[in-house]
């Protein structure tokens, strides 16, 4: 997977106000025109794995947002001191620090979810979104914008996860957040087994990409 994403040039002249137009773009772009999953096509593996239900999808979103944002800030602070030849391993060390923290927190406070997410929290270390943002943004920008960029990309990832999770849970099992919505309405719903397979997530991600691109007219440049 390529990490070659459009770098946002932030000229280091005067300090930007925290919520200037440019800063707001850092949050809003990843939600739509620069979405990590549907446009950059990163982090798809975990998007297929944790979206059979809404709840793990939300927890995964929070975990990834925390990791991306905090690693972005730390790498951004260190960006001028990291020798470029060993930057990947330095980035990995910092990412794994945050992943272990999140992992332990989850284990301590919501053990069931931790079990459900299993290896996927640990695999955030190798998640392309985290590494991609560190390489493409944090290595060249100040901590403030880096923080916003990390949060933005975490939320962009989460948005798709929630959409996919919503459709997989409601089509696959007829429930939302574990609440059997069709049975509550007195209807019988026969679960769609395809949606519980990773292939079902592939179809939904594909449809989301289809809808998104026909709405915003995005075309891949060659």
């Amino acid at each position, binding site marked *: 997977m390529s990490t070659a994403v459009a770098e946002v040039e932030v000229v280091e002249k005067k300090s930007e106000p925290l919520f200037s137009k440019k800063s707001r773009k850092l949050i809003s772009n990843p939600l739509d025109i620069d979405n990590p999953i549907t446009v950059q096509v990163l982090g798809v593996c975990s998007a297929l794995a944790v979206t059979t239900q809404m709840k793990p999808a939300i927890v995964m979103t929070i975990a990834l947002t925390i990791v991306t944002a905090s690693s972005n800030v730390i790498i951004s602070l260190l960006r001028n001191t990291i020798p470029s030849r060993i930057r990947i391993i330095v980035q990995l060390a910092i990412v794994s620090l945050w992943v272990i923290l999140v992992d332990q927190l989850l284990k301590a406070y919501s053990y069931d979810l931790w079990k459900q997410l299993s290896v996927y929290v640990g695999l955030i270390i190798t998640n392309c979104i985290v590494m991609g943002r560190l390489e493409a943004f944090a290595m060249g920008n100040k901590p403030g914008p880096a923080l916003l960029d990390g949060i933005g990309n975490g939320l962009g990832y989460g948005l798709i996860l929630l959409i996919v999770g919503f459709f997989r849970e409601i089509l696959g099992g007829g429930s939302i957040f574990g609440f059997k919505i069709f049975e509550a309405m007195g209807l019988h719903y026969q679960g*769609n087994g*395809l949606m519980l*397979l990773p*292939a079902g997530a592939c*179809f939904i991600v594909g*449809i989301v990409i*289809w809808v998104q691109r026909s709405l915003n007219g995005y075309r891949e440049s060659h």
Partner: protein
Amino acid sequence: MNFLRNQLDKVKHSFEKGGKLEKYFYAYEALETFLFAPNTTNGEKGSQIRDAIDLKRLMMTVIVAMIPCLLFGIWNVGHQHFLAIGQPDAALGDKILIGSLQVIPIIVVSYGVGLGIEFVFAILRKHPINEGFLVTGMLIPLVMPPGIPLWQVGVATAFAVIIGKEAFGGTGMNVVNIALTARAFLYFAYPTDMSGSVWTYLGDAKAVAAYSGATPLSLGADAATSGANVVASLNSFGAGWNEGVFTLSNLFIGLRPGSIGETSTLMCLIGAFILIATGVGSWKIIVSVFGGAYAMGLLLNLLGGNAYMEMPAHYHLVIGGLAFGAVFMATDPVTASHTETGKWFYGLLIGMLTVLIRVFNPAYPEGIMLAILLMNIFAPLIDYFVVGANKKRRLQRATV
């Protein structure tokens, strides 16, 4: 007829450019060209058309080739129904009635949903409505079990047309066979309605005590573990309610439970004859699918190992849906290999994979669906190598 023509002419102006229903022109056009021969034809000079066959006639030929399978399927649904409920002497008319009541609604739903989606996409994308769905709409019912809930047929058809075809750009652009996409969708989405004892339509009636919903494929899979002789268990199956249902001749003629159109190898061969005689289907693909399955069966016979592997190779050609898949699915000109040499490899691999999946994968008793879908994906690769080899051969010959 004049009445229809007049009605069409009356509303025509509102669909033409500038009319208030301009957006729906292609829906109107489709209806008009369906009912009447179009009045726009090529001039006498300058056209490169060498044959009168167009997409519409091509599709209609395939449908004609499927009619034997369909009619036999309708009768067979009723026939198996009465055998299972213990009334083997039911009248021919009753059998056809029961069969029609089951099969025709499935066909109506399949065409209704599929053509509806085609209309919507044609209007959205502003292109004439293609005839591509005519064959698919008939293939889908023929590969469904007779008792399938109608809403599932609708959902599967919608999924197959939208994801399998329109997402790739419409008729002629699809990568995998659309009818098989619909079947694969149901197979993975609602496995309880697509496998097990669903191959005989029982309705509200109660089956006789001796009735069993096993199929030749499941008997074969059982034999692989129990070690019983497959031919012996096929021949003795059905004692008490449907004597000799799985004998070789019965399997060939198709007097057995199964998907609506797939049971009869004989009817599929009649269809194959029509397709080959009219030049619509590729005989190379049909022959090589059968050949590949037979060769793989022979190879497994030689290897031995378990009772299923030792089943005589020719049985593989008449059980399951191999014949139907080979004749109507594998020959789909859009998704098959396009090079003539490639067609041999494509067909051979379908046949071999079918038998491999049948014998070695107990989770998927029938392999033809997955084998064709898999080879649909690989068909462009086969073509790539065939073209590459051809280029290499000609370069060697060239003297520059």
